[in-house]
């Protein structure tokens, strides 16, 4: 399989270390990587599928901030609703863009999971100490059942390309309000949000969190396709069609979440849970009520995937 096809589904490592570290990479199960142009030849001689990260390649990629919890006491409570730096909304906004990110120490698996959940083309530089964690994440992604499914959304956001609309998408994603960026107002979803319209004047974008809360109220929690309970630091991406759903759960908190409760609206049967760093698990306490399936996850590390099938 060519590198071009692989980058469409898996994030790839950028590694500026010499080939003396080849054994470390093999132990981590990594055989394809980006390297500095001057190291391409030696890495290829060492048997790796190496591509040069040239200055042109760098400049053609959107640089991202590493994901995680940020200390923003002025805007967010450290314990109740922490500030999260997340990139999912960027991936959703520009799904065909190519990305470059330097993960801070301890966040390699999280950064890779964000990209994988959104089918993003990401080149990821990491702290060498995170190599095994990244390798573990990549092996986990490869072992998942295949699922190329479109994103599920409860609302559309008309993307005018502005910073304000981007911030709104950021805050919608922060609240797990499932949105679809569109280029012009479109039918088919319960809500269409267009900054500058009568319903959503641009002045409201000055406080994107308040605007996201307004949109949440308009949508109504009971009508939302997805709700999460038991954590304020887990963000989700939901993909699917009439027959199956794949739920990606990304935990930005830096510690395990135990007993996360998930509510998915619709007629779905409890399915498989694949938990990064934990393996395959069964859902707990599933119940169907009020037109939705609810279940709990025993434990969630940085990332998990839940596959659901339509109830018979």
């Amino acid at each position: 399989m060519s590198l071009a096809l692989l980058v469409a589904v898996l994030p790839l490592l950028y590694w500026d270390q010499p080939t003396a570290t080849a054994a470390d990479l093999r132990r981590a199960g990594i055989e394809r990587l980006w390297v500095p142009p001057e190291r391409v030849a030696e890495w290829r001689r060492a048997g790796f599928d190496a591509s040069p990260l040239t200055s042109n390649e760098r400049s053609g990629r959107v640089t991202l901030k590493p994901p995680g919890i940020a200390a923003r006491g002025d805007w967010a409570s450290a314990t109740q609703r922490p500030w999260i730096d997340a990139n999912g909304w960027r991936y959703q906004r520009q799904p065909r863009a190519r990305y470059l990110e330097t993960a801070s120490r301890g966040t390699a698996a999280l950064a890779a999971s964000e990209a994988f959940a959104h089918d993003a083309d990401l080149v990821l530089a990491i702290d060498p100490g995170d190599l095994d964690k990244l390798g573990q994440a990549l092996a986990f992604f490869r072992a998942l059942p295949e699922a190329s499914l479109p994103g599920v959304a409860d609302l559309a956001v008309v993307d005018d390309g502005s910073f304000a609309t981007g911030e709104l998408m950021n805050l919608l994603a922060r609240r797990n309000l499932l949105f679809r960026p569109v280029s012009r107002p479109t039918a088919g979803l319960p809500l269409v949000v267009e900054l500058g319209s009568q319903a959503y004047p641009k002045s409201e974008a000055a406080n994107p969190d308040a605007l996201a809360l307004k949109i949440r109220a308009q949508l109504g929690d009971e009508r939302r396709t997805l709700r999460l309970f038991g954590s304020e630091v887990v963000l989700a991406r939901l993909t699917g069609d009439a027959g199956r759903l794949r739920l990606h759960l990304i935990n930005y908190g830096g510690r395990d979440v135990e007993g996360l409760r998930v509510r998915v609206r619709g007629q779905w049967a409890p399915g498989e849970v694949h938990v990064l760093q934990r393996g395959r698990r069964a859902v707990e306490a599933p119940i169907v009520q009020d037109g939705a399936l609810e279940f709990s996850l025993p434990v969630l590390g940085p990332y998990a995937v839940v596959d659901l099938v339509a109830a018979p």
Partner: protein
Amino acid sequence: MERRAFLELLAATPLASAGRAEPVADRPPPPHYRVVTRFAPAAAPGMPGPFPARVIRTRARRNAAAAEEVVEPGVVREMMERGMRALTGESTTLAAWRRFFEPNDVVGIKVNAGGRPYCVTSPVIVAEIVRQLTTVGVRPSQIVVYERFYNQLAEVDYAPQLPEGVLITAAERGNRSSEQRDYDPGTYVEAQFFGEEDTRSNMMRLVTERVTKIVNVPNMKDHGATGVTGCLKNIAYGSFSNVARTHARGVTHTLSAVGTLAAVEPLRSRTVLQVMDGLNAVWHGGPFAPTRRYLFHPRQILFGTDPVAIDRLLLDTIDDKRKAEGAISIWDRSLSSLRFDNGAARDADPNVNILIREPGHVEYAGRLGLGEWELAKIRVEEIEV
């Protein structure tokens, strides 16, 4: 079968206030609460129980040879025995405890360890409760001392005072908002207070799945959100997850949340006895007590089944002490006193609030049927030991 109840709240509840001339904080409208539980109430719910509007207050005489905060274990035992006999009208202590417990009960003892190290539920009182339960015939393995956060329990270390077999447990290792497995996903209160996404507070599995009865053993403490934390706050916020979300930016919804949570089944039915530890108390900075600065020593233990009546007395105990110390009242709603989210300022100055307190939560709980709020209707029996 699951039973669902929808509580429409008392939007225009007349509640007492200080009535100052300076600008005061408005009370936010209460949220809509949705209560989900599969449990039906008992024929006679534990709260307010068989002794509504009745409180027994035992006081320990001062021992001139001992420090003010020291109450001898023997004196505590006598306070407990006489208090329980007075509450029930039974002639023996055993008969008094048998009014509430049977040998096959699994009994939870809800302590309060949040005020560690200086104001927590006394291990001596907990040990005496366990002793009386075992006298009734409840095996130590059927007794559970519990809190929400294990790190707090570990600091108090109840184990040395208790017989082998008593379980000491908590729902979460610490206050980190990441451990939900020991909460019941099917028993919760759903409400949105400040736009939070996680809108559920779930009851501990221990309460829904294991214990048949609960003894609630709070302290006498000031509280930055509720004015005081006594029976109602201890059993409600100490048995549900995700409750800190009820206050933010100087405002708290504890007025309605405390009583609403306490009234959820099976918590309401299973909480059959209230024993308020007033040996030591906190008049400011609560619910915490990291220093001795705001400690005082009422040398009391209160008994009852009506949490509202006991907490009504507590409001006056704390407020009277604050007045004696020259501090603003727990009923103070002045904006000039408010330094929200500034715990350091609050700890340094007893005339600083970090939230507009809601001591009216006691009256609110009374209106939900959890007990008697009106002081004139509360019958207090005083016993000096």
